[in-house]
Structures are given as C-alpha cells and as structure tokens.
C-alpha cells in the first residue's frame, strides 16, 4: 500500500514539476533586461533597444508624436497639478520613488512625447517600449491608464516642467 501510494504521488508530481519547468522558461523569456541603477531614479539598462543615453531620442509608443514646448504656462501647470494629485499621486512622488519611479527631473530624462505616451498608453508601452518594459520589470506594478485626455496629459507634463524648473 505504502509503495503504491508513493508511486501514485510521483505520477501526480510529474506534471507539476514539468509545469513549473515550463513556467520557469516562460517567465525567464518574458524578463526583458537586467535592472540596475541608482536608487530612486528610473535609470535602467536594457539589453537591447535604447539605453539611457538614447532616452532623449525615444518618443515612446502612443498617440503623441510631437509636442511643441513653449514658455512655462503656469495656468496649465496648475490644472496639471490638480489632475496629478487625484490620479497620479497615489503612485508617484517627486522627491523619492513610491509605488512607481520618482518623478523629480523626469523632463530632463525623458522626451515630452515619451512622458505623455506613458500616461496615455501605458498598457502598450509596458509591453512594447523597451524603457517602459524595463521599468515594469523593476517596479512590478503595471502603470494603469487613469482615464485622462491628451489635454490632461499635456497639463500634467507642464506641471512636471514647472517642478523641474524650480
């Protein structure tokens, strides 16, 4: 009886072990690149695709192809602050990392187009954009679309610019 029981267990275990093996392979494929960088900064090294040095040439993927930046618009920044506090501050701070990366200095690290596309099209960015993918691999919580318009995203960008100009 005992031996039979153990044998049965082995039969049961076989697919489990196989399953784990497959899952392991799958997840190692999905990993993307290695994640390192100074604490609190969204500096990421990506095995292939743009590196940090390329970040100011990567507009990301999404509806925003080109943003014309003018002089700082205080009214727009104020509007952006209101939206940010309701819909973004749950996960982002300027002075340190939180649920997601620290946002202080983000306009110096990323193209305005990339920033807006990340806000407006996070699901695709996380899957397709190498920099966004690497951030997801680092922070593990997928950034979510917070039902904002392109105008809202532009206002939030202005708020970021105002913050970085201080």
């Amino acid at each position: 009886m005992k031996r039979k029981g153990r044998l049965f267990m082995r039969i049961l275990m076989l697919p489990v072990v196989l399953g784990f093996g497959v899952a392991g392979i799958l997840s190692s494929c999905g990993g993307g690149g290695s994640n390192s960088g100074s604490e609190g900064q969204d500096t990421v090294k990506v095995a292939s695709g743009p590196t940090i040095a390329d970040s100011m040439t990567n507009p990301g993927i999404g509806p925003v192809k080109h943003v014309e930046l003018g002089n700082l618009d205080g009214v727009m920044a104020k509007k952006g602050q209101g939206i940010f506090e309701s819909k973004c501050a749950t996960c982002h701070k300027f002075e340190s990392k939180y649920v997601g990366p620290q946002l202080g200095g983000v306009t110096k690290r990323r193209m305005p187009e990339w920033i807006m596309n990340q806000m407006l099209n996070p699901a695709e960015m996380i899957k397709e954009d190498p920099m966004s993918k690497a951030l997801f691999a680092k922070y593990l919580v997928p950034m979510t679309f917070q039902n904002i318009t392109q105008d809202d995203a532009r206002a939030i960008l202005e708020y970021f610019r105002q913050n970085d100009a201080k």
Partner: protein
Amino acid sequence: MKTKKHMFKAIGFILLFASLVTLNTACGHKKNNQQAGGVDKDAASKVYVAPGKYDEFYLFTSGGFSGQMGVYGLPSGRLLKVIPVFSQNPENGYGYSEESKPMLMTSHGFIPWDDSHHPEFSMSNGTPDGKWIFINGNNTPRVARINLKTFKTDEIIELPSSAGNHSSPFCTENTEYVVAGTRFSIPPTNADVSIKSYKQNFKGMISFIKVDPTDGKMDLSFQIEAPPFNWDLSHSGKGPSHDWSFFSCYNTEEAHTLLEVNASQNDKDFILAVNWKKAEEYLAQGKAKVMKNSYYRNRWIEKTHSATSEEIKEVKVLNPKDCPGMLYLIPCPKSPHGCDVDPTGEYIVGGGKLATVIPVYGFSKMVKAIESKKFDGDFEGIPIIKYEEVMAGEVQKPGLGPLHTEFDGKGYAYTSMFLSSEIVKWKIGTWEVVDRAPTYYSIGHLCIPGGDSKSPWGKYIVALNKITKDRYLPTGPELTQSAQLYSIEGDKMKLLLDFPTIGEPHYAQACPAELLTKDQTKFYKIEDNQNPFVTKAEKDTKAERKGTEVHIYMTSIRSHFKPDNIEGVKVGDIVYFHVTNLEQDWDVPHGFTIKGSTNGELLIMPGETMTLKWEPKKEGIFPFYCTDFCSALHQEMQGYVRVSAAKSTVPISFSLGDEAAK
C-alpha cells in the same frame, strides 16, 4: 535505481490509462452518429466557444430561492455573473455596505432574502431593447429593475396588498407598465380577520407599475381589486392586443386550505384579460379610490454610488364594479399556469397543468365576443366570455402537464410538459404537434432568445428543469440545479448541452450578445463621484472622530490603502471605512475587510466609494487587507487599526509610509 524503477512504472501507468481512454472513446462511437442519451456526436462542437471567444447570446435566469439572477453565455452555458437583487451578496458587499443596505428595505424592515422567479427584458415595440431587465421577488412582494449597462440592481419597488408576487414582472409592448398579480390573495390592507372569511375579505390585487421610458424609474400607478383567485402568470399583449394584459389563475374555488385538492375542483379556471388603456381612462376620470398603505421604493443613484429608500403611504385602487369593460374572464381548462402571447399578438396560449389539451385563444375572437356579448354569466360583475367563442384552437394530446409556451418566430410554438418531462413543438394555426424532445427532468419554464417578444431569435431553446437526479456528479442530498440547451434550427429539436445553474432557474430571458456589449460601463469616472464620503485624492484621506463615531476616508490603488496605519479607535466606537477606489481602468476592483468584521466585505469598482461599518468589540491590533487579487504586490495591500480600551486617551491618528502621522 529505485527511482528509475518507479519512473518506468509511472510511464507504464500513464500508457495504460491513455489506452483505456482511447478504448473507451472508441467504444462510445455508434454507427448512427449518435451517442447515448440521444445527443448527436457533433453536439460538442456546437456549444464549444474557444478560449478568449465570446458567446453569441446572453441568458438571464432567475436565481429562484437564492433571490438573485444568473447570467450565462449561450451556447456554452458558462456562468458569467450572479447579479445580486433581493439577497445580500457576500461576494461583493451588496446588502452589507452602508450604501447598498437601503436597497433591501421594505415595510417589514430590512429583508436580506427573497425568492426570484421571472426575469423580463424591457421592450420597445415588443422587442427586447437592452435597457433593463426586471425580476420579481415572490415572498415579500417586490419588483426589481436591473441596469443592463452595469448589471446592477437599480431599483426595487414593494407591492402593497400583495403576497406571493408570482404573475410578475411582465412588460407591456413598450414597457409602459410592468404588471404584477398576487398569487396569494389577502385582505387588501392586511387586516386581522378570520381566515374562514376568505370569500368576504380577501382580494387578489393586480398592480400596474409605470416605467419612465428615459431612466426606467418605477412608480406604482394603480392596482385593480380583482377576485380572490391565485393569480399565477401573465404576459402582455402586443400589436393588435397592445392595450391588454393577460393573467392566468387557479383556485377559482376560493379555497383557503388544502388547495392541492380544494383548488382543483373546477373543470375550468380563468385567464383574466385586463384592458389597461381602459383602466387608464377610469384613472383619469377619478374612479380610483386612494387606499392608505405602506410600501417601499429603493433606488440606486449612480452618481452618489449609494441607494435611497422611501416609504410610500398611498396607492390608487380601481374596483372592477366601478369600471365596466376593464376586465373579462376567459375560461381555461384545469388550473392554468402559463399564459403566453405569440409574436403576432393574436394568440394567447393557456397552459392548464392538469389539462389534456393546450387551449389557444384568438384575440380578434375575444374582441368580437365582447362586442356581441357572448357571455356565460359573470363573476362578481366581471363578464365570463364563452369558451367556444374565444377559443381559436386546441393542441390535442400534447403530453402531460403543459406549463409554458415560447415562440420561434417561424410559426411554431414550444410548450413545456412538466409531467411527461418534454418539450412539444406545435404549429400555430393547424395546432398539430410536429416534434417532441425529452428533458432531463421535469421541465418548468423554457426560453427562446426573444421567445416571448415580437421578434424571437429562434436558434436555441433552453429547458429550465426542476429535477436533475442522475445527470451530474452527486453532491450529497442537495444536487445542482440545471438547464438544457437544444438547437431548434432544423425541423427536429436537438439536445446540445446540460449546464448547471444557480437555484432555482424558473423563467429566463435571452438576447443576442451585441445588444448589451455595445454599451457596457467599464468603470466609474472619479470626477463624477458624488458620494458624500468620497476621497478623490490621496492627500485628502483622513480619519475623524465624531463622538463615538470614527470616519475613515480611505483610498485604494494598486497596491496600497491610504491611510494604512490608524490609531485611536476605541472599544465601543462605530467605525465607518469609506473606501474610494481611485483606479480608472476596467477590471481593477479592490476589496476591503478587517479582522473580526461581523458585517461583510466590500468589493469596490474603479471610481466607486463604498462604506463598511465596523464595531470593534475588543482591544488589539486589527489588520485589514484587499480581498481581490489586484497586482503582483496584492499581498502587500494591507494595513492595521489599533483599538484601545474605551477609556483610553490615544488620539485619532493616521499615516502611510514615512509620512508623519496626522
């Protein structure tokens, strides 16, 4: 060595098992293309909906004694949702959250349960319009309206002077009214009288609920004080019969005890024809008397994400004696149950559950008989039309125990036979039986998508069965409830699938999926949230003491609550957690509960605010957490409340992360 040996044995077992399966399948093939139980071998491919693909139809079944409504996909029979309606639902906090509790208020107080029987789509031009679905509460008489954009119960109205709200909630052609007849007659204001005074004091109230065409809001427009029969089922007219509603009844004997015997004495009972247009005229003429009563109407307000409850104290009642031409009785053999109107609106089918024929009445014959006064006496002033004058045809020898009839829009009717456990297909006009299919077992209602409307989608029929017996793996004394799916595309009905349902599936409604998928609510806009306890930004979260009440304004987002450390709560306090889900994306609800909650949990949709009331009984540290797996860091989505002694001086404070406690 030992391991290797086991490995070989294991492989041997697998091979043996595989070959047994193969053998078994091979044995299962029969030459005539059929498998055991009369199911074609291609039945599986007809109900298979590939992973990631959608079903073609929605099916809404009553949840019976669960008080809820089940939503399934057809042809797969996959359960998609249980919509909480008349019963508290621990799965999503319905009836537990402070916002939803008013939905279950009645003149008898808070009622956590009911028995739901008949779903009915709202109709425009006699066809399901995809706006709402109504369902009756049988026990504490109520009608609920469910919003088909949100699949949430939007409104529940109680019915005064009613008991056993069974012949309900059937819509008129353009949802002008939802009707409701009382199954158990009672004294109208429920006076304390002798049960033996049934014939003098009891009435069978019939209610007409007006439905606002834009927002669906229900209003009990008027009631008709009908004779004290047991009003059983109903359907409203359409096309030529637009102005009429029809109600079947049993117990025309007016028995109040041992109805099993005493209510089965008469050869014929009745179908009552109500001219509601006429009733409207009498109402406008002021013929209704205002009866003092008490009933509740509860409405879900989407912008505040909360329900309101109001008591209404009056209802207008029409007495048939004051309203000639409003009611007519049509004799119907042997305790009729079903009362169904064909797509043209000309034929009314009675289902006499103890009868040997299915009587079909002609609406135009009825009109003629009324005009030429072809009456066979009256009942308390209500004319009884002569059976032969109104009868259009009888389906002979249909089977045993005819109950309900649905239509395929191609000239055929399908009647469920409870006793002989089958569906009988017959031709409208010739009344001949053309096909029959067994059901497993004891079918009650049946449902064709749009099968009680002007334009049925006659592809499938669903049998809603009362007994499952040996059809599924046994689960102790209490077995699953079940429905069966048949194809009705060809001349012959073909059984395709058995599928379990929540219990008990009485009636059902089905419609093409695209009628509802095109307009689904995916989340609630946080900007539009007007809940008085909403927190729209993390910076506005707080905890406040008001005497012995503590209000915690909390937000949730993947994957933290803010605040997540709360101190200063004391034994004896009443704590309200007002949790706002700040997510703005589809399919990201967050849950909330706290250790020792004697209430329930919350399941908060994106952009929604829900409140959990908690009365801590002892000191200590009480963790709370998100109950709905939300992200990779869901396990981290937790917090602590410190509860101190009643006399403690610990002040209220709250914090998250490194922030200083406020």
